[in-house]
């Protein structure tokens, strides 16, 4: 028989609560978005603010928050150059 060792509270919330303890859950939700949105700065802005809110309200522990913040921030850095109003071809 397969058994799992776990705190009873988390057991009862499993599988809903456990992933909150890692940042994988958030990143999986982020990845579930359409591909074109993965690097959309506006989408990333919203996700970063949501993440900040979850962290400040204690829903996401600090290590998970930092990891997800870095992941989203990295994607933002890769995405930001996208569109410039009035840019010429030389740019």
């Amino acid at each position, binding site marked *: 028989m397969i*058994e799992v060792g776990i705190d009873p509270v988390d057991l009862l919330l499993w599988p809903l609560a456990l992933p909150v303890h890692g940042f994988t859950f958030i990143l999986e*939700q982020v990845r579930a978005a359409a591909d074109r949105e993965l690097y959309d700065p506006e989408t990333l802005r919203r*996700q970063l603010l949501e993440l900040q809110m979850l962290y400040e309200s204690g829903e996401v522990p600090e290590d998970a928050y930092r990891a997800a913040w870095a992941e989203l921030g990295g994607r933002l850095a890769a995405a*930001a150059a996208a569109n410039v109003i009035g840019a010429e071809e030389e*740019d």
Partner: protein
Amino acid sequence: MDTGGTAGRSRPAAERRQGRWGSAVAVRLYLYALVDPPTRRTLGPVGVGAPPAVVRVRPAGALGVVLSEVEGASVALEARDVLAHQEVLGRLLRTRTVLPFRFATLAADWPAVAALVDRIAPNCAGLVERLRGRVEVGLKVLWSRRAVRQEALQALGLHPAAGGAEVSVPRAEAIRAGQAVERIVQGWRDRYVPQILAALRPIAEDDREGGVLGATMLYNASFLVARDREPDFRAAVRALDDRWGDRLEFRYAADLPPYSFVDLRYGGEEEPQ
């Protein structure tokens, strides 16, 4: 409307500046929002970039453009710039109607901005009227772990272990417990969300449901509320909290940029509603 007419007067900076080695360095304009009224103002070094760029409001016809300069052909935005962008909009919301640009919108130079504003101003006029004197507020409802746990224990006929020590249980039992929790949370969503909306919608002028993020979020929405009715809205949220605070947590944020009700893009096919 002559939005281009302001371009020649007090141009904020050369669009190309001499670099350290004498070569021309491009200066782009980072756009935060269009605002009404368009009164000129300097907000100081609170913008995106490191160190934070000076943010200014520059009139372009009937609207003001909130902008700062960035050096280089593009801008390398970081996560903290999201907070700077939000802070800039927050400061302006107190005194003006704000139509936020999508995050990370850049312009090549001021004439390009003026031409854009000239082109989209007719569409913006209706949007400004719709938003004038109104604020966006956000509500997130989370379920209490303790309350769900209690209900799940009853449903499963289990008794909590003392001291919160780890226990070993068959995997099938854990799955059954997880499924019971899922059913409870969905049941709560079906039961409470309509009642929350029934209490809040009469006070709001519009609302938009947002996605839930995180496993413990039951509901997430933004509401457009007349500024003078915001205290009533807040009181209604507080009343909901008084009523269901033992099982639900209400997170309320007022005075948000109206992103849920404005989608200000600049492409020819994606102009404001």
